[in-house]
């Protein structure tokens, strides 16, 4: 029996600077079998572990079709992420997972998809965007609403042009504010500002929402007002996690374990649960 608390060695193949404090790390398990068996659902997460420092959970940001390697996009906000940010190509780290439920890919086929996301929330639905791109005929329209605090804080900015070029796809961006001297041709305001001009009609749509809780709270309110039903909204939640397998207890949300039952939940599943700001 494999110990679920054991981690596997992965080598860093590439480091992409996304913003001043966010990097995408492309990795590959050293063990070939582990790498070739590593498959995941968009929205699932992994644990990255540095002995002596600790470990933390991160969404997988690479495409599900890529079996050669995988990536995760990490903002430097604390002890563990700060240490990971010091790592470079060729360095080795420990990785475990994947964990959790992902975005409901089965339910998305044939639907118009809306992705509403903020800041460092984009890496979680990014594999969905790539998947839709690779299976474009299986899905209806795709609309991505992405908000950040400033223009410089946009992750995967290098890829956004390609998303715009996808068939029947719309990408709308906004920022909370534009620093002096910075050019910005998109909207200014919080993410819900983008909802005002959204083109997706609720009738045959599903919305995937990922960002800070306060953002998700207002996005849910807004989309409900625009005719979305509670069953059409999916959210990816953040919680403190220490194990990923519903044993450490930290991620409990009422009767749910966010690591096992989530992190993606249908809004109707978590409505009214305590200690949740959505």
């Amino acid at each position, binding site marked *: 029996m494999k110990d*679920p608390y054991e981690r596997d060695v992965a080598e860093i193949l590439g480091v992409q600077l996304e913003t001043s404090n966010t990097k995408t790390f492309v990795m590959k398990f050293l063990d070939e079998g582990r790498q070739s068996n590593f498959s995941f659902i968009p929205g699932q997460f992994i644990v990255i572990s540095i002995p002596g420092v600790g470990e933390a959970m991160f969404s997988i940001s690479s495409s599900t079709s890529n079996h050669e390697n995988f990536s995760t996009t990490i903002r430097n906000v604390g002890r563990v992420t700060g240490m990971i940010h010091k790592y470079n190509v060729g360095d080795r780290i*420990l990785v475990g997972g994947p964990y959790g439920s992902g975005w409901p890919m089965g339910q998305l086929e044939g639907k118009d998809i809306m992705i509403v996301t903020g800041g460092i929330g984009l890496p979680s639905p990014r594999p969905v965007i790539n998947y839709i791109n690779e299976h474009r005929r299986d899905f209806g329209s795709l609309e991505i609403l992405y908000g950040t605090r400033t223009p410089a804080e946009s992750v995967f900015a290098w890829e956004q042009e390609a998303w715009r070029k996808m068939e029947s796809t719309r990408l709308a961006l906004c920022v909370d504010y534009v620093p002096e001297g910075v050019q910005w041709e998109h909207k200014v305001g919080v993410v819900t500002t983008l909802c005002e001009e959204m083109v997706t009609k609720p009738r045959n749509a599903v919305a995937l929402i990922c960002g800070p*809780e306060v953002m998700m709270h207002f996005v849910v309110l807004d989309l409900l007002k625009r005719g979305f039903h509670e069953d059409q909204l999916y959210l990816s939640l953040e919680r403190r996690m220490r194990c990923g397998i519903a044993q450490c207890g930290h991620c409990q949300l009422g009767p749910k374990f966010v690591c096992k039952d989530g992190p993606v939940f249908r809004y109707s599943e978590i409505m009214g649960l305590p200690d949740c700001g959505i």
Partner: protein
Amino acid sequence: MTNFIMPEEGLEHLIKTLCGSYEVFGPVRKGVECSFEKITSAKDLWLDYPTTILPPKKFFTPPRETIFTFKEDKISKIEDMIPEERQILLGVHSCDMASFTFLDRVFLGFRSDPRYLRRRNNFLIFALTCKKVSETCFCQSMGTGPEAPSGYDVLMTDIGGRYLLEASSSGGNALLGSLGFQQATVEDFEAKRGCLESLKGQFKKAVNRSGLVELAYNNQEHPVWKKYGNICVACGQCAMVCPTCFCFDVKDRMDLSLQSGERYREWDVCLLLEFAEVALGGNFRKSRDARLRQFMCHNLSYGVMQYNLMKCVGCGRCIKACPVQIDITEIARELREVSS
């Protein structure tokens, strides 16, 4: 399965025989309190103990345990996490027996934790019918006592000057069979029934379980949370002594050389401020009301939704440990009787 009757003097023979091939732990007096400790003689035992300070979960998921050690880049797994010798935990009350079923579902259900599994399988369990009911006991109302729920290898009941020993596993059966005690009679079982009946009349605390899962789940804004959240000092003792509280933190520790260290896990409790903290100062349970509600609702409601089993087993340890007299049975009552 065979059942035996053991005269009181036979206890020393039993313990000595068990100690011959097992490491044996049992309830030992510590001042006015009791603790499960290693024993070598019947004289070490306190068999009419009230409840132990720490529940027996400490044997299966210790307060602190190493997950792995590392030196420079090399990770070493912990292979010898349990002793070679098999172990016996003797004198487990019915509430604590019920806690094992819950813990098994946590640590062996969704994913199997090899540490827990190896420890758990290394133990034979000798359950013990309570001799008396403590002020804080309410197992009867939780359906976990005073009759011991299944899961033991042997059940011991003091039926007045002699013990009825009931085997419930092949291991327990073989052990008892080797001791040379006489087989139990119908009268002995009658005597046990009498003991249980007398226990049932002694309970001072109770929880009305009818519809409790929904009641707690649907009353997240009930005034009871504010009322008790205001006096809770968030010390977390309730969860530390709870036989079914399983939460732990995972931490790394480096040696001074910065060359080697260990990753370990350590009991953690949801009453503490840091428990639900995330990056950038986020905290999903900042208020004591919310943290107290989490502990209480997990025990009275969510546990059933997660594992199809009430988490609270009615041992009363949290009531006894609380420095400000917060009483889970009182909270359950107020949830029902005080309108929100």
